[in-house]
């Protein structure tokens, strides 16, 4: 997995609450059997004026001039500023894949939906929670200053603004460790294979029906 330590990059807005994963990446693009290539369809229905098709070349599609990611000032953004309950709805991991593929490394919001939050950590993308007021400050500063960049420092758990404001954020120790070191979750869990086998052996005795095979 891609590691995440400290980044500095342009911040771009997704200024509405309850952004669902259907909005982040619409269903027609979920037909891909790959993990990559979703960036061009990130926020497809907001970004373009026509209906997107899977496997379609997107250069030349009519752009929605009102959508911030189409504005020159937000090009090459790597930090997405968002509102509460970001990533609600479907469990599709295509949502963090699309954000990552587009170039985002971090999403800052007052709250995230549980499954989306979890999925981000599996893909080197940092979902970062600040308070409503702190997020509002960042939005205001960003709107006021084209080229506005944020520094996100995971080891010290800080967001630093161009003006030197510092906001602290919380993150689980284990997730932080995995993200900083780009660790493969599965490899770590398999190191506990003996504990898993011991659990299974006990359960096979106490609840044997749980181990009946699914048969055809």
């Amino acid at each position, binding site marked *: 997995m891609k590691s995440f330590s400290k980044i500095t990059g342009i911040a771009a807005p997704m200024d509405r609450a309850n952004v669902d994963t259907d909005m982040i990446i619409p269903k027609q693009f979920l037909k891909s059997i790959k993990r990559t290539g979703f960036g061009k369809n990130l926020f497809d229905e907001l970004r373009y004026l026509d209906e997107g098709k899977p496997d379609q070349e997107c250069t030349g599609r009519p752009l929605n001039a009102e959508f911030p990611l189409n504005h020159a000032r937000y090009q090459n953004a790597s930090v997405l500023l968002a509102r509460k*309950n970001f990533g609600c709805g479907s*469990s599709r991991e295509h949502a963090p894949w699309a954000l990552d593929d587009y170039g985002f490394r971090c999403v800052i919001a007052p709250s995230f939906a549980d499954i989306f939050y979890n999925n981000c950590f*599996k893909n080197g993308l940092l979902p970062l929670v600040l308070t409503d007021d702190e997020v509002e400050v960042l939005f205001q500063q960003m709107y006021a200053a084209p080229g506005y960049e944020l520094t996100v420092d995971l080891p010290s758990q800080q967001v630093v603004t161009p003006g030197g404001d510092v906001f602290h954020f919380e993150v689980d120790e284990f997730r932080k460790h995995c993200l900083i070191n780009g660790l493969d979750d*599965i490899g770590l869990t398999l190191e506990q294979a003996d504990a*898993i086998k011991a659990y299974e052996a006990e359960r096979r005795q106490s609840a044997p029906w749980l181990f009946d095979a699914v048969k055809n």
Partner: protein
Amino acid sequence: MAARTLYDKLWDAHLVQQRADGSALIYIDRHIVHEVTSPQAFEGLRLAGRKPWRVDSVLATPDHNVPTTVKERASGVSGIEDPVSQIQVKTLDDNCDEFGIVEYKINDRRQGIVHVVGPESGACLPGMTIVCGDSHTATNGALGALAHGIGTSEVEHVLATQCLVAKKMKNMLVEVNGELGVGITPKDVVLAIIGKIGTAGGTGYAIEFAGDVFRAMSMEGRMTVCNMAIEAGARAGMVAVDDITLDYVKGRIYAPTEAQWAQAEAAWRDLTSDAGAHFDEVVTLNGAEIMPQVSWGTSPEMVVGVADVVPTPEAEVDAVKREGMERALEYMGLSAGQAIQDIKLDRVFIGSCTNSRIEDMRAAAQVVKGRKKADSVKQAMVVPGSGLVKAQAEAEGLDKIFVEAGFEWREPGCSMCLAMNADKLGAGEHCASTSNRNFEGRQGYGGRTHLVSPAMAAAAGIAGHFVDVREFVGQE
């Protein structure tokens, strides 16, 4: 031992390893797999040279992409007209064959929507931990199980290790007491709950649904309610085990055999919250006050009673919420103060993992029997949740009732709930839908979804606009 909630008990029973930072390794008993969120997970296994830890704990079936017309289904996978969909369904077949996973393939009579097939087959049982790469996995919580959706990386993790890295959620009790009015369905109950607590109200919680209303509810009704826990932000919803649960489970294909039944039943009888167990949050509703619900906006919390009007954004004090309401009204082509019953429908969709079980089919059929679809409604589609539901409905003659009323009777799948197959709304079209999400574009680009119960959807299809099904059924 201290009094524990149902969720506490399920968590404790599956704890393999607790870590100091609060995260834990949790054992997964059942893993259900479909074609959309699994290909990258299988590819990950292949690249790392890994095999499934316990391959016979997995059951697969294609549902999201499958066509629902007899014509397109006739020749199986190769008959799927959309080449991208065809590749995805074919990839599931290939992966299941390669890894030795049991799959109910596209034209197997047991094929269907994952969350219908799981309980129906008995693959999902009380007391289990159940995961699937789909957020509506919470449906299975109706069995008294800990069930929730996971992402594709976690699908790979569970395949490889039989475990999940998880953090214990908080406990929420949603208690609905009293008696539901005549004609009020489980769908109305869960929409009313979401309307009350909001789409993020359950974030970070596992919800237990308790009280008179759920005790009196059928298993299928409980599945409808647990299914939409995620629409209230909660990954998992659940209902305690009782006689209704046990009667439902007994005799299903993968249910414990006679020899093990007594032992299983004894264990399952304990799957209730202890008296005095602590809930971090308690929400109560009065069942008698719940009206037939209709969503008017682009989030499941934007819901009102059928006799109400579309709300006015100016009355909302929260600025972010107000902007959301304004945007929703614009997208939906509705105006504040408009009567819900004046909303005209272009299409009707009866189906999805929320409402495609036999009781849903019966409820809709009862409303349309002897009536005709309104001419102004372009299409009314009924999509059973599985091949077995379809066969049962046909044995009861429900298909004929629908067809005589001008409703289409389709092959099983997710269909227009998320429009990954050919079943979708056109831009600007209003749909009375028994599905679970009214997000922008969810049922088709520019489509306008109104979430309702099967009976309400059926009645809207006959009238051409929303009506109170309780008054409607009485009319002749």
